[in-house]
């Protein structure tokens, strides 16, 4: 790793650490109450007392952004983990199954993939109803096909690997071969995908909230704050600016970490 890459990694991990702290105990980083309104102090531009300014109800934007981390991170992690587990199961089953089952599963996944992920999540939320849980479920369902595809491809190619054939020639049973030789090979790329997937899930969740389909006001949520910001764009540009920075920085950090994971996996 070059010096620049090392610095970038350190920064990314630092950002991730800050995010985790913000998710668990936001007041450790900034003591103000995200829900405390102050109508008289509305639309205050960034200052020492309010580094991110205040919104239309006089609430401190920095406190709200920090508080929003928990929801965003929570939804992102939950959705991605669920998608990874389900995708792994479907993908490996499909990769090992006989041609019949495999093609049925593949077709089904193809149909789902015909949908852009965001639109699919949108439609699922339409059915389940708005709210953070609905958003998490929607995002994870929309993400499963991608993980299943990678798991299936990995399974198929691992099955053809010399050492898998060797295991078969040695007389090792099918399940054991799968568990020992195939799954470890597949987990690597999946984990790399998942690390970046968390970032993507966070953006999608914020997007759905921005459209009014996620958490409802007055809950602090990055997409919601951005929506507030949109409504008062000409007057108070800072309400829209900072949650967006938070999202971008989060996604950047997960991308960097995800790439490092992928490089590690490919080198093995």
């Amino acid at each position, binding site marked *: 790793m070059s010096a620049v890459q090392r610095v970038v990694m350190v920064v990314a991990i630092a950002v991730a650490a800050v995010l985790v702290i913000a998710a668990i105990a936001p007041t450790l980083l900034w003591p103000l109450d995200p829900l405390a309104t102050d109508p008289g102090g509305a639309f205050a531009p960034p200052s020492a007392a309010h580094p991110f300014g205040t919104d239309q109800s006089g609430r401190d934007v920095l406190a709200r952004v920090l508080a929003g981390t928990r929801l965003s991170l929570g939804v992102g992690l939950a959705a991605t983990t669920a998608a990874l587990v389900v995708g792994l199961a479907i993908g490996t089953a499909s990769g090992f199954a006989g041609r019949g089952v495999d093609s049925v599963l593949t077709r089904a996944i193809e149909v789902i993939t015909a949908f852009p*992920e965001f639109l699919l999540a949108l*439609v699922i939320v339409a059915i389940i109803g708005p709210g953070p849980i609905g958003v998490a479920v929607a995002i994870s369902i929309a993400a499963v096909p991608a993980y299943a595809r990678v798991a299936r491809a990995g399974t198929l190619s691992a099955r053809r690997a010399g050492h898998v054939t060797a295991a078969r020639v040695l007389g090792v049973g099918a399940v054991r071969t799968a568990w020992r030789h195939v799954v470890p090979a597949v987990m690597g790329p999946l984990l790399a995908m998942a690390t970046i997937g968390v970032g993507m899930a966070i953006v999608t969740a914020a*997007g759905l909230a921005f*459209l009014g389909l996620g958490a409802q006001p007055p809950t602090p949520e990055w997409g919601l704050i951005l929506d507030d910001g949109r409504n008062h764009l000409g007057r108070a540009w800072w309400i829209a600016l900072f949650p*967006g920075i938070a999202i971008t920085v989060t*996604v950047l950090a997960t991308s960097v970490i995800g790439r490092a994971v992928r490089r590690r996996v490919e080198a093995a």
Partner: protein
Amino acid sequence: MRRLPGWAAELLRGLGGLLVVVWGAATLGFLAVRLVPGDPVDTMLGIHAQVGEHIKEQIRIDLGLDRSPLEQYLAYLGRLLTGDLGRSYQLNTTVVEVIGQQLPSTLQLTAAAMVLAIALALASVLLARGRVGAAVASTLELVAVSAPTFWTGLLLLTVFGFGLGWFPVLSSSSPAALVLPALTLALPIGAILAQVLREGVTGALDQPFAQTARARGVGAARMLGRHGLRHGAVSAVAIGGYLVGSLLGGAVLVETVFARPGLGRVALRAILDRDMPVVLGLVILSALVVATVNLLVDLVLRRLDPRIRLGAAR
């Protein structure tokens, strides 16, 4: 049956696949809509409507909701084949009309965004060469992909609309009003395209045939133009379906941010109002679009890279 030329057989198979996908989407949509809790009539009339039960019964019969699910499904498929997507619960028109009215605006936006994205990607790959240039370009692209579209749209609007006043803040049908939304939508797409293109190009230049070409006296420019770009294009076209899907998804957000009329607004309204026929219609439409793009991508890929024609045989 055996005497069909290769490409015709492939085309038929592709179309067959497309039909399967659209049918699958329609069926899944139909099932999903049935899952929506609550009485569709109540949904249609709205929570606050004070309507007598016998009128509701009449509406149910009119809509065919009194028949068995299987009959409803078959009737639904039948209507689809004739291009009838049903009637909106909320608005007083057919779904086809609703979609048809707003389609051109969205089409304008996505087409402009695609063109911009391709231009940005090509510029990035052709201009930012060499280790430093490529690294800088990669970083910028990473940021472009990480920043949410609804945020970049707001930023661009603030700076170029409210701030500098170069572009109109309110939406209109003038081309100037198309610039910021199209640019917003184009940024992440162009970034991904640039990355894939660059990976394809540099990957190709690392392979043995690049050495052979170099041994013939081929210089950097010709190497990139004649050899590299073709390989890069293969990778780029391969993700065409995904890119179009992202465009459609992004369009919803961008239209909301810039208050532009279009299918995005229609979709949002329909979802918030639980107007299921419209939602279903949009679902089928987007499935159709993406599946068609995938089919085109397949056909183009086979022409570009004939190795793919052989499949997994070798």
